[in-house]
């Protein structure tokens, strides 16, 4: 039974016990404080007075980035920044107004200053303006006495001497923000001002940054520095040497002329990337010290999306450029022999399906074998081959050649593309797989998405007789000036096809495409033999937008002309992919661009004898 009185009495007893226990604990704690503050006071007082030695972080210079010939792509240059210590500045508004009369301070800079100030204690300096001009520095020096708590501080800032040329490869650094600090985790990184935000600057951030050190600084009671007691030195960041060739990069950009698009050139023997462009480009220097709203808006509203890295994140339907690889799958699986012939009538029909699948030639190509099917890009050959392989086997082989998986390039966020499969279709479209889907996949259309990186890697793999090297941009690194360059470790290559006879048949088909096939125009006058394949990715009907300027069309609606190639065909030293947005057919726009890039790389490297010998034959 409940008894109100008994419960109240019980509670009173417990409350008294509780209060007693709390009193004892608090008294005990108070005694603890007495021991610390009164009995041991002398000891702690001494320690407090000696406590003027404070660790201060030393931020090492960021590693430099060079191209393969030692040209500097990312540099550190001395600059000066304007800092204000709010506590010492007295009337902050008046100080800011006074400074604004000496130095141009934009609305953006003022906003950043105020938000940084709120996150910092008031006796700590806050950056007001980065990269002061010579003139502004002189004016500040003269007026310095008027502004207590205002300081001009030297620092190193990042500069990209080639401007927009390496915007997507090297990337850029930007000012450290709260998100970066949260990912870096350790409080010592608050000493950093910049971190890599994109490209290699981001993927090699930790190596380029180096290790932050400490120096123990003795200061007086007011907090002024007296001397450096000792230090734990900072470890400088790594310098990187890229496999990129700045001249080839420039030649690639010039080859595009007015077109947008992407191109990559690699050395098939190593997987080294020689040039990698995504057009249009942008100036990474804009981002280093905080981009202005107008500049940023101009970049983000541009329909051609300059900030978008077409090579890494972009994907396109590969069109006919995957035919050599599908052909190889046919040979390797034993479904076809090189000499097997298929009849092309101009239209291909699935049993029981009324709508046909077309060839590029209205009347068809007649009887064609593997070589001619590549040279003339005969759709019917591949419609039938895809059906004979079946989508499962089709996917197994193409995955092995590198489609639908990352190339392993040393950049962050590489897209995997899409290898068409029933699983993919079910997941994305909640719909079953039909034989027509397999037929479409056979000519690189339908659900296919490949990145330029995947296409160039697959081409290089073919050129290298089935050896697939992971693509990479960094070939060597060194720790500071005095150290020698050390080769950067690369992941092992993978053999994805080993039957040389099969590979030879495909390669002959690609040579034939340039000697008398779809791309014959670009072979003319070349002092070396080219193997290539054209392709076109159509997004909307060509008829309706024939008169439209490509620059006014959103990226997703532009159709793309593609070309893959390697050269010299007998001993390949360059493999290339070119994607031209809104560039008509692969043969007419993409192939000539590829030729110019290959010329820029090969002509000066060819042995003189070969050069003169082939020049005789027109």
């Amino acid at each position, binding site marked *: 039974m*409940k008894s109100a009185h008994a419960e109240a009495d019980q*509670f009173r007893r417990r409350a008294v016990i509780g209060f007693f226990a709390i009193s004892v604990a608090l008294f005990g*704690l108070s005694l603890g*404080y*007495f021991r610390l*503050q009164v009995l041991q006071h002398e000891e702690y007082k001494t320690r*407090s007075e000696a*406590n003027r030695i404070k660790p201060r972080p030393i931020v090492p210079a960021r590693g430099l980035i060079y191209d393969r010939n030692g040209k500097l792509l990312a540099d550190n240059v001395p600059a000066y920044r304007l800092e204000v210590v709010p506590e010492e500045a007295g009337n902050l508004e008046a100080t800011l107004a006074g400074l604004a009369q000496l130095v141009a301070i934009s609305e953006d800079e003022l906003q950043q200053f105020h938000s940084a100030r709120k996150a910092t204690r008031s*006796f700590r300096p806050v950056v007001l303006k980065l990269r002061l001009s010579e003139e502004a520095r002189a004016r500040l020096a003269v007026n310095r006495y008027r502004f207590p708590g205002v300081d001009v501080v030297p620092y190193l800032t990042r500069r990209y001497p080639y401007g927009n040329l390496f915007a997507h490869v090297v990337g850029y650094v930007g000012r450290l923000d709260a998100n970066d600090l949260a990912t870096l985790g350790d409080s010592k990184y608050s000493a950093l001002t910049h971190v890599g935000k994109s490209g290699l600057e981001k993927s090699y951030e930790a190596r380029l940054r180096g290790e932050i050190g400490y120096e123990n600084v003795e200061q007086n009671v007011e907090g002024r520095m007296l001397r450096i007691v000792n230090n734990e030195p900072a470890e400088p960041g790594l310098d990187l040497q890229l496999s990129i060739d700045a001249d080839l990069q420039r030649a690639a950009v010039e080859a595009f002329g007015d077109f947008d698009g992407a191109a990559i050139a690699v050395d098939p023997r190593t997987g080294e990337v020689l040039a990698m462009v995504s057009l249009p480009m942008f100036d990474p220097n804009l981002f280093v010290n905080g981009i202005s709203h107008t500049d940023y808006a101009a970049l983000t509203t541009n329909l051609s999306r300059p900030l978008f890295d077409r090579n890494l994140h972009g994907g396109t339907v590969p069109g006919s450029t995957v035919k050599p690889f599908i052909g190889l799958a046919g040979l390797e699986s034993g479904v076809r022999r090189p000499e097997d012939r298929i009849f092309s009538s101009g239209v291909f029909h699935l049993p029981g399906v009324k709508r046909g699948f077309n060839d590029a030639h209205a009347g068809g190509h007649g009887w064609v074998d593997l070589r001619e099917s590549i040279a003339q890009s005969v759709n019917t050959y591949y419609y039938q081959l895809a059906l004979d392989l079946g989508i499962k086997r089709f996917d197994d082989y193409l995955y092995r050649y590198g489609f639908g998986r990352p190339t392993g390039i040393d950049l962050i966020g590489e897209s995997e593309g899409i290898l068409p499969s029933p699983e993919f279709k079910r997941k994305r479209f909640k719909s079953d797989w039909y034989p027509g889907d397999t037929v479409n996949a056979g000519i690189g259309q339908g659900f296919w998405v490949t990145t330029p990186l995947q296409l160039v890697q697959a081409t290089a793999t073919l050129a290298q007789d089935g050896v697939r090297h992971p693509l990479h941009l960094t070939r060597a690194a060194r720790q500071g000036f005095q150290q020698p360059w050390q080769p950067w470790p690369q992941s092992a290559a993978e053999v994805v096809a080993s039957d040389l006879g099969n590979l030879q048949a495909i390669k002959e088909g690609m040579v034939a495409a340039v000697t008398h096939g779809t791309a014959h125009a670009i072979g003319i006058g070349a002092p070396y033999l080219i193997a290539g394949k054209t392709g076109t990715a159509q997004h909307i009907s060509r008829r309706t937008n024939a008169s439209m300027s490509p620059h006014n069309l959103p990226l997703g609606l532009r159709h793309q002309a593609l070309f893959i190639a390697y050269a010299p065909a007998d001993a390949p030293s360059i493999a290339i992919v070119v994607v031209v947005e809104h560039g008509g057919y692969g043969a007419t726009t993409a192939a000539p661009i590829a030729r110019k890039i290959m010329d820029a790389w090969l002509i000066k490297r060819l042995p003189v004898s070969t050069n003169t010998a082939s020049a005789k034959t027109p």
Partner: protein
Amino acid sequence: MITWLRDITLSFLDKVDWPLMLALCAVMAASLVVQHSAGGGDSHVVIAQAARFIAGLAVMLLLTRISPARLRIWTPLVFAVTLALLPLVFVIGSGRSARLWINLGFFYLQPGELLKLTVPMMLAWHLHRRVLPPTWTSLAGCLAIIAIPVALIILQPDLGTGMLVVASGVFAVFLAGIGWGRIGLFAGMGLSSLPLAWLFLMPYQKNRILTFINPESDPLGAGWNIIQSKIAIGSGGLFGKGWGQGSQAHLDFLPEHTTDFAFSVLSEEWGWLGVSVLFALYLFIVGRSLWIATNARDGYSRLLAGALAMTFSVYVLVNGSMVVGLLPVVGIPMPLLSYGGTSAVSLLAGFGIIMSVHAHRKFMS
């Protein structure tokens, strides 16, 4: 007009327990003084803290007007709502290292903070209907009321709040008169499960406990805080270095000097005398609240006010011990002294309930 305004004000103040109110105001005044110095003379900190106190006092005055009888009727509903808010932080929560907050647009709500009030409310509601001392069945109910919210809070992860909620529950059961044998049994079970709890701690929490055991092991890293805090307190001496003269705080040796280590700043600048005065104020607040609880009109009010009062002392004891290195740094503030919004508001709300218990004691006796 003037009289009308005065009447309104007076009627809002008529339920206030003035001894308790004065002691609370004294602590809050001390807080503003300490924050002024700890914030490096930045008036922004002082104004923000004052604004929170005013908000907390408003909530407190409102709660004095709700009678415990009505509060008791609403208890299951209020508990259910606050419990339902907890899983929300996993979905829409924010916070730097842990997800503790829900952004309501005009301010950040921390559901864990609300449960510091609603868990003792629910326990008091649960226990007041049953025979006391509690039977094993009622204890099982208590365990569920404590364990479910605490598990969710610790998952967030917010160890400090979790511990305070556990404490409020333990005190409610203790005040309900649970037998000493069972207290011993539960204490033994709790102690023996500690090694198991270690496995569930986050790396940074383990790190705090390891540096607590040996702060000198990492003098520039995690142990730095404790060493510097002890130097600040010890160098304060009997009378302190004087207001604004604490070199440890001002040369930036002392970390988190407005929040977790605000009490170190007070100790450095006001010495052992300042510490003792503050401790005395805290003890008075706890004593007065317990006295109010003993004189409450029913079991619900008694248990609720008693549990809230005893929980308040946990803040003081844990924070006071942690800044001198007697306990690991667990993120429990010095109540009404440390800088921080939600804990000030929820503490003052608790005192609003206690004052209401006092104001409504007469009706039944």
